[in-house]
């Protein structure tokens, strides 16, 4: 006999009241690919598990007439890949989410789980930051919308209150000539944790970069937005010197750990390399070549 409780409410209001009523002992269950591993290892011992996958808004993908995508927080990688339009506008976000784990993990892993798990190496987070995605969260006092870049705080910690649930991500509409890309460096070719992850989103109008945003993962206690890199890119023609300056901005903000999978020197150096490659891919996609 256990004293854990499991609930799978069908409305967000019920989920919020159960979650906040448990006063911190409750855990949200999306795909469970982090949570169940953590429960098994004894890292977390929930009093209450709130499964949010029966809530329509959290499990659906919508595209508005003006080109805004709203992706439910617990939509799985497989489901988002099956949406025929999302990957055309946000190929970088989709490739970042689809890099997570194996086919089996893709059947369950979600953007909301990846972000709320709070890992500095979460693959989709740099891409979400680069996309300037907004997260809608709901708690007992109602809803608020926050830029994804304000969510990560430190390993395992986010800025969400312990009674707030991530509901959906909204991706802004963007002009023609826009695209994004995500690259990560792992010591193996599959099934590994990023040593560096870099997301880049660009808008290119008449050969000039008019908008840019860069997210960088696994090089600091939380995923970072690299404003200096974006500043270097905006207004330029993405020439070699500009891109080198943007790479330098990435290296400058690195504050990584030193471990068997990547030394500080290596992670710092690779952050610049990935920035350059991700810019090249995003630019190619933006120009439609």
């Amino acid at each position: 006999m256990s004293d854990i409780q499991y609930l799978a409410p069908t409305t967000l209001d019920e989920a919020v009241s159960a979650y906040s009523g448990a006063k911190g002992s409750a855990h949200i269950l999306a795909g469970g690919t982090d949570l169940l591993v953590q429960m098994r290892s004894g890292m977390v011992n929930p009093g209450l598990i709130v499964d949010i996958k029966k809530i329509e808004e959290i499990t659906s993908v919508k595209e508005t007439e003006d080109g805004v995508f709203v992706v439910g927080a617990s939509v799985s990688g497989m489901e988002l890949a099956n949406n025929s339009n999302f990957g055309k506008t946000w190929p970088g976000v989709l490739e970042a989410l689809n890099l997570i784990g194996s086919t089996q993990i893709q059947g369950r892993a979600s953007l909301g789980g990846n972000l709320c798990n709070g890992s500095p190496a979460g693959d989709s987070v740099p891409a979400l930051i680069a996309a300037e995605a907004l997260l809608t969260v709901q708690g007992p006092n109602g809803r608020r919308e926050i830029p994804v870049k304000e969510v990560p705080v430190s390993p395992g910690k986010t800025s969400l209150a312990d009674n707030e649930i991530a509901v959906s991500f909204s991706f802004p509409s963007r002009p023609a000539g826009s695209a994004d890309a995500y690259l990560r460096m792992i010591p193996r070719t599959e099934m590994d944790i990023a040593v560096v992850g870099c997301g880049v989103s660009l808008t290119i109008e008449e050969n000039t970069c008019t908008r840019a945003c860069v997210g960088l993962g696994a090089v600091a206690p939380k995923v970072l937005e690299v404003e200096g890199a974006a500043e270097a890119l905006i207004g330029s023609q993405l020439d070699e010197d500009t891109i080198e300056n943007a790479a330098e901005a990435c290296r400058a903000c690195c504050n990584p750990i030193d471990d068997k999978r990547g030394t500080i020197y290596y992670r710092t150096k690779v952050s610049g390399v990935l920035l350059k490659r991700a810019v090249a891919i995003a630019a190619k996609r933006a120009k439609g070549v």
Partner: protein
Amino acid sequence: MSKLHISTIINGEPEEFLCEPEETMLDVLRDRLSLTGSKEGCGSGDCGACSITVDGSLICSCLMLAAESEGKKIETIEGMSDGETLHPLQQKFLEEAALQCGICTPGMLVAAKALLDENPDPTETEVRFWLAGNLCRCTGYDKIVRAVLDTAQEIREIK
């Protein structure tokens, strides 16, 4: 806490069971329903020996709570053959010796079937990527990949 009462459909048959809230689907399949074909290699999503499909999508049953199966359609390795008649993948695995100890085999077969249901004509690279979450310590994978490709071809020829 009292146990949860769950109604689901497993391999086409309605199934009801009682479980603890934190029990995984894998534990319920093996320990409560005596469906021991799905194996536990790791319990952490790394090996794929526990692969099943839920409403058609391939997942690791060790990373799913049994409670989540309420109202869902579950397919396990036990549902793969048609009575005594093996599924073409099972037959090909035997013919081509795509297994040695056999621990990874149920997961490999369930995952390979999910691939062929979605993509009847995969390339070798596609097979290798699709099966990257299924670990095998014996075969070196080549025979498994070959058996999947040969089955795909055979099914296409029959059709």
